[in-house]
């Protein structure tokens, strides 16, 4: 009697195990047939981004893993920089009250008459996109946002991507982790 019950239980267990084993095996094979060897990371398509400002506030990290980067190749090295100076700035100087950047993260350096170089201090940048907006509307759009992968913790679902109004943040292959304007062009 005891023996029989035990045998029956063992039989049920065995068939259950076989069924479940086949189920996850099947699921695994199906998924594996599509799986990619490389990893995914999140990145911003700078041509889609409309500089809404959520990148600064919605990242799980504080300050955000999104930073402004400068595609120097596209920059006009303007004295009157739309990304550096406030539109109503009263002079073209490095005075903080004239700067668009709330944290003074852009360093302006004189190169030669009449050109200036603008470099982002990543430590200070909070990814607010104010400069990007200025540069995109008045300049060449060489300043733009990117997710910096030495800071980003690569969330399974990026919390900025979820709220990005222009749907600019997408998973990209880790081997092509950046979409820097100029070297990376808009997919047609």
């Amino acid at each position, binding site marked *: 009697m005891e023996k029989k019950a035990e045998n029956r239980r063992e039989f049920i*267990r*065995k068939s259950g195990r076989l069924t*479940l084993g086949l189920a996850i095996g099947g699921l695994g094979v199906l*998924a594996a047939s599509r*799986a*990619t060897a490389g990893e*995914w990371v999140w990145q911003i398509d700078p041509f889609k981004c409309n500089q809404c400002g959520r990148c600064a506030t919605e990242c799980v990290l504080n300050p955000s893993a999104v930073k402004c980067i400068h595609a120097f190749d596209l920059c*006009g090295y303007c004295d009157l920089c739309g990304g550096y100076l406030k539109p109503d700035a009263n002079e073209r100087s490095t005075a903080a009250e004239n700067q668009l950047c709330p944290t003074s993260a852009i360093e302006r350096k004189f190169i030669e008459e009449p050109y200036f170089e603008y470099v982002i201090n990543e430590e200070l940048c909070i990814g607010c996109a104010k400069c990007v907006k200025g540069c995109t509307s008045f300049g060449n759009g060489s300043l733009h946002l990117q997710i910096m992968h030495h800071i980003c913790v690569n969330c399974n679902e990026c919390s900025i991507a979820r709220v990005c*109004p222009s749907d600019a943040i997408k998973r990209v292959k880790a081997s092509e*982790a950046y979409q820097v304007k100029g070297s990376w062009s808009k997919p047609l």
Partner: protein
Amino acid sequence: MKPKIYILLTFLLLFLSLQLPAQQQRFPKPEFDSGYEQPDPVTPEPRSGAMEYFDVAVLLAVLSLASYLVIRKRSRQGILWLSVFSMIYFGFYRNGCICSIGGIQNVTLTFFDATYAISVTALLFFLLPLVYALFFGRTFCAGACPLGAIQDLVIIKPLSMPRWLRKTLGIFPYLYLGLAVLYAATGTDFIICRYDPFIGIFRMDAPFHMIVLGIVFLLMGMFIARPYCRFLCPYGVLLNWMSKFSKWHMSITPSKCIQCKLCTTSCPFDAIDFPTEEKVTKSSRYDAKKFIIYAAVIPLWVLIGGFVGSKSHTYLSKAHPDVYLAELLIQHPELKDDPDNIDIQTFLASGKTMDILVEDARLKRKEFYTGSWILGGFIGLVIGLTLLNQVVYRRKQDYTPNRGDCYSCGRCMDYCPVDR
């Protein structure tokens, strides 16, 4: 005067920028005479793929060690230290991502989104613990899961919960699993990741409310052992199924149970099944009748569940951005003039017409209709089976861990006086 000029200028430039291809520069790149070298933008590489495979190797090692420790070595101490290691490595060092629990959504998305395919490492993270559970029980929960570990460590004075309450709350993980799959399949959201209560603690950085949630769970966990594991974890559902049929599940006693009852209060999760009493055996005929009735109403449960589910599809679909935006614009067309509503302004500027948006939203909602029918039916099935389980008579003589619910944490083993 000045602002006016600027507004004009903005419009002019906007107009121009629409005309020109995106790459064209307004101001040409200067030719430098001073020998200035143009720097390159700094783009630090992400964590290398090899490291992700290393993580898989760590997981494999931890799973094997956990299974060995609990089944062969029978060492609670060992399991405890292993779980501390996993909490530090997968939790605090790896910041909780990627994890097997969230992997459910990646697997789902692979089947529903043609543009996405899960990476091999994420797939392994999802599959390995399940395979181990099929052979050794939930050793993943005992030694490898950082969420389990952090909850396990704060258990101080676990209270025993009545069976009916445990069984009722036990429906929630199924609901959570169903919702997670539904939201992942419709490309709406990864709710398991978004509402992971402990990730804020692992990262020591998160929105305020998530940190609060994590702390609440830990405080609660002092008295209700592993609250997330027992009443929420969607991956626990899958592990539970696997573990039920596991080949070599741990046992409380190393040889033969002597019915000393010393272990009865040792499990903080009420996961020890007691032997059946004699008098229950007598009324088994009555139970057989009940069994047939309960089994017969299961299809009814499924139908009711599916019906309720389909009724809630409108509500559930609101989480999808397209549906949300379309609804907002239909109900409050005046918001189109609100310059502060970023979502609406972006939509208006994107050139997408209202008709297309509404059509997109309608299709999404249709997906939700089908999805919530299935989700509801699934929950109905779970309720029906849970009830049926209550009247199934299983003859049992010894004190044994419930294979589905037991986390293989090994606490009870230390209470058993029987020598090997």
